[in-house]
């Protein structure tokens, strides 16, 4: 017999008591895993939804603040379109959702002074909420000599199927549903078409950048700003859209804080339950401990027995707790987060380590009580 056999036999032959011990730690670990897993899904969903507020970084010419509403033909300062490629080549480019260059030009169309924006396909990625008759924009996105009208721009121009810009005819591919943004008053054409029409070859007025990682552990929005700034020449200014960024970071941070608080509370609860379990285990086994002390068990061995038991409970509780927590989050998560929840395998080692640490720490005081038991007193109890 070895210490581990001694402990395993006790647990194996008192299965219900062992199960009670495991359930103490399992409760804490499963809620911890469920909270973390659901939080991850919530985080992803929140991030996706928050991106809908628009670009979170704007790149514009350095000395001339751009104001889309006062654009006059041939007026505003521009940047080379090649800067788009420089931004796409930054180290963390994988975290960029869209890099959307824009060229603005005003045109008189009938009695309407229309602000026309030259855009690339990235505009669609940056604005997944653009809809036509509640359907996502697909084939309607303008190509060549086509134009897509904002909601009120379309209303002003009536049911025109074609419009003329600087003498050139553009086919109207559709009218966007109301967005509640400045887009409602604009018309959208392909960037290169507008560049050709205005003679601003390969030039843009600004570049909007959307990142997927606003408050990731490794990168936040301001890190992206610095990285883009370093990649571009001095004539470009990189500006974080602070209000959006702060709101986004604040929301995501709050979700994370909430989960952390829940996790800490349940892990404390788990360790409290475990300490209680171990203490009652010492009380129930007083006579047995008395016999062992009388026949020569040393205090160090008593510690070893209790800590080994805590180790087994911790490892088993951590493994089952991970499985139960993942299952709970996969079943209940979609109801809470309204999004599919996937298991986070990286949590498994954390669950086992945290569970084992809690069990061991919670067992130290009860083990000490057992080791200091007076065998004469304990043997008197029958």
């Amino acid at each position: 017999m070895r210490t581990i056999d001694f402990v395993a036999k006790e647990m194996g032959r008192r299965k219900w008591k062992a199960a009670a011990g495991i359930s103490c730690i399992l409760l804490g670990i499963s809620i911890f895993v469920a909270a973390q897993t659901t939080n991850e899904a919530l985080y992803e969903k929140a991030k996706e939804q928050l991106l809908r507020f628009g670009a979170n970084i704007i790149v514009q010419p350095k000395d001339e603040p751009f104001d889309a509403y006062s654009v006059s033909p041939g007026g505003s300062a521009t940047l080379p379109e090649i800067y788009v490629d420089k931004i796409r080549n930054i180290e963390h480019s994988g975290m960029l959702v869209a890099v959307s260059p824009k060229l603005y030009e005003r045109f008189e169309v009938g009695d309407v002074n229309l602000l026309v924006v030259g855009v690339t396909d990235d505009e669609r990625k940056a604005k997944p909420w653009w809809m036509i008759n509640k359907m996502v924009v697909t084939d309607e996105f303008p190509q060549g000599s086509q134009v897509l009208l904002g909601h009120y721009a379309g209303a002003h121009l009536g049911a025109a199927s074609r419009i003329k810009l600087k003498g050139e005819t553009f086919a109207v591919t559709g009218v966007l549903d109301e967005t509640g943004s400045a887009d409602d008053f604009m018309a959208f054409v392909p960037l290169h078409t507008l560049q050709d029409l205005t003679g601003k070859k390969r030039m843009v007025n600004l570049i909007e950048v959307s990142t997927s990682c606003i408050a990731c552990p490794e990168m936040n929005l301001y890190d992206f700003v610095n990285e883009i700034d370093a990649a571009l020449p001095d004539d470009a200014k990189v500006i974080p859209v602070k209000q959006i960024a702060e709101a986004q970071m604040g929301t995501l941070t709050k979700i994370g804080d909430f989960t952390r608080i829940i996790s800490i509370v349940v892990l404390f609860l788990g360790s409290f339950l475990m300490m209680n379990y171990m203490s009652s285990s010492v009380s129930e086994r007083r006579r047995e401990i008395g016999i062992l002390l009388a026949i020569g068990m040393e205090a160090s061995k008593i510690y070893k027995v209790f800590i080994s038991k805590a180790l087994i409970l911790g490892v088993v509780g951590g493994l089952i707790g991970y499985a139960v927590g993942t299952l709970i989050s996969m079943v209940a998560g979609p109801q809470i987060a309204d999004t599919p929840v996937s298991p986070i395998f990286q949590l498994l080692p954390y669950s086992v380590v945290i569970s084992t640490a809690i069990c061991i720490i919670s067992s130290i005081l009860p083990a000490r009580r057992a080791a200091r038991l007076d065998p004469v007193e304990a043997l008197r109890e029958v």
Partner: protein
Amino acid sequence: MIEVKNITKTYGNIEVLKDASLEVKDGDFVSIVGPSGSGKTTLLNVVAGLLTPTEGEVIVDGVSLYKLSLRERTAFRREKFGFIFQTFNLISYLTAIENVEIPLYLAGAKSVDQKLVAKELLDRVGLKERLSHLPSELSIGEQQRVAIARALANNASVILADEPTGNLDTKTGEEFMTEIKRLNREGVTVLLVTHNAEMANFANRQIKIIDGRLVS
């Protein structure tokens, strides 16, 4: 040899043992007889190194027990003494053979050796067929025989028995005492505490204890 020298044990104002002195030679079989509350279990606990006396000294084979550190005393007890208590003597979730293995495990013997010795000892007390039974599956008499085997596991030279027949019927009690007597003839020193005069008769020498005083 066990030498108990002028032992006094008090709890507050109550003197449980009063200037008790006793000598048990190697191979002797001594019974301490007395009514409940006379101090006989206290005396046995003091001799075992489990209960520090208020005054006096216990010397076993030349070693003064209470001059040893707690750890040294525990190790000494493990090597010298085998214990048999009244009942509920065994660890309930361990089988007969595993119960006998415990002192060997505590002494650091290898698992294989533990099994071999435990098997041999249970064979010696007639429980060859009951190795894998839990205490709850054994009769009280069988449980006490497992306790004897456990007491002998570390080659103990002294058996300390505290009312070992207290919960046995007369016939089983006598069988048990016959077994103890046989071990004594093989050279094991026995110190028995009992209130049962018939069981005390198995000893070579009887010492009475009344109100904490030893009376020969």
